[in-house]
């Protein structure tokens, strides 16, 4: 007696695509998680170009505020020792008294860069537009 074997004669069976959205969802979630919109934040500053240094502008001594950071990261404003947090307020007062004020930030070569940036931050807080960065001659 012959055994009858059932054959799929309906043609090709369709692939099951119901789970494809699950897979795609997984990929999507992966990319959403690893995507970082990293934004750099900085203190912009424009250096004096070499060519500009030839035409030197003379500034009156009375219009200059000398901020000095020494080798031990101590700050002084026109030879008066000062705390970092009071720099902005002091400069603001001076700027009000004299709008032509130019701030010169002199940093000792051995001072920390972080300290220089902290003082620069204070100067920006005081809204001083005219300023220069210098290295302290030793």
């Amino acid at each position, binding site marked *: 007696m012959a055994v009858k074997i059932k054959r799929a004669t309906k043609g090709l069976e369709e692939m099951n695509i119901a789970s494809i959205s699950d897979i*795609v969802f997984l990929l999507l979630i992966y990319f959403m998680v*690893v995507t970082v919109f990293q934004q750099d934040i900085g203190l912009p500053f424009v250096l004096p170009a*070499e060519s500009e240094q030839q035409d030197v502008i003379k500034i009156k001594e009375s219009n200059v505020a000398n901020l000095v950071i020494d080798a031990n990261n101590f700050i002084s404003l026109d030879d008066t020792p000062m705390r970092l947090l009071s720099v902005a307020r002091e400069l603001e007062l001076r700027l009000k008294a004299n709008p032509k004020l130019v701030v010169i930030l002199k940093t000792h070569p051995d001072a920390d860069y*972080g300290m220089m*940036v902290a003082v620069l931050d204070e100067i920006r807080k005081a809204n001083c537009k005219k300023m220069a960065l210098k290295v302290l001659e030793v």
Partner: protein
Amino acid sequence: MKFERNLKGQSSIPTASMGDIVFLLLIFFMVTTVFKTEDGLPVNLPRAETGQELKRDLIANIYVDRRGRISINDKLVSAAQVGPLMRKKYFENPLTIVSFQTDDATRYKVMDDIMEELKKANAVRVSFNIKHVSRK
């Protein structure tokens, strides 16, 4: 007049187009994802409050770590090499902003040397990169 009513229970929401929507989202995220291309040096950026966001496409990074090593495009360079390298970038785009990724414990001497080089190369637009904090 008799109205036919669908009494077979709730009809289900068609989910056939779900895959299309998800694919669109996937493609969007794949296209907008930018992976960091530069490793640089491990640095601990100084903290400040008055920082501004920088335009990504204008930036040329210089990494300086606390030992005074300088890295540009993942290559260690000396301060004297910074000028020529930046001159090239500046030539390609005069609006280039040189962005210092410098450790806060770096000696100022190193930074001053680099800045002198940048002045010579006419790359005068710089930015001291910081970690934004708000004191209050």
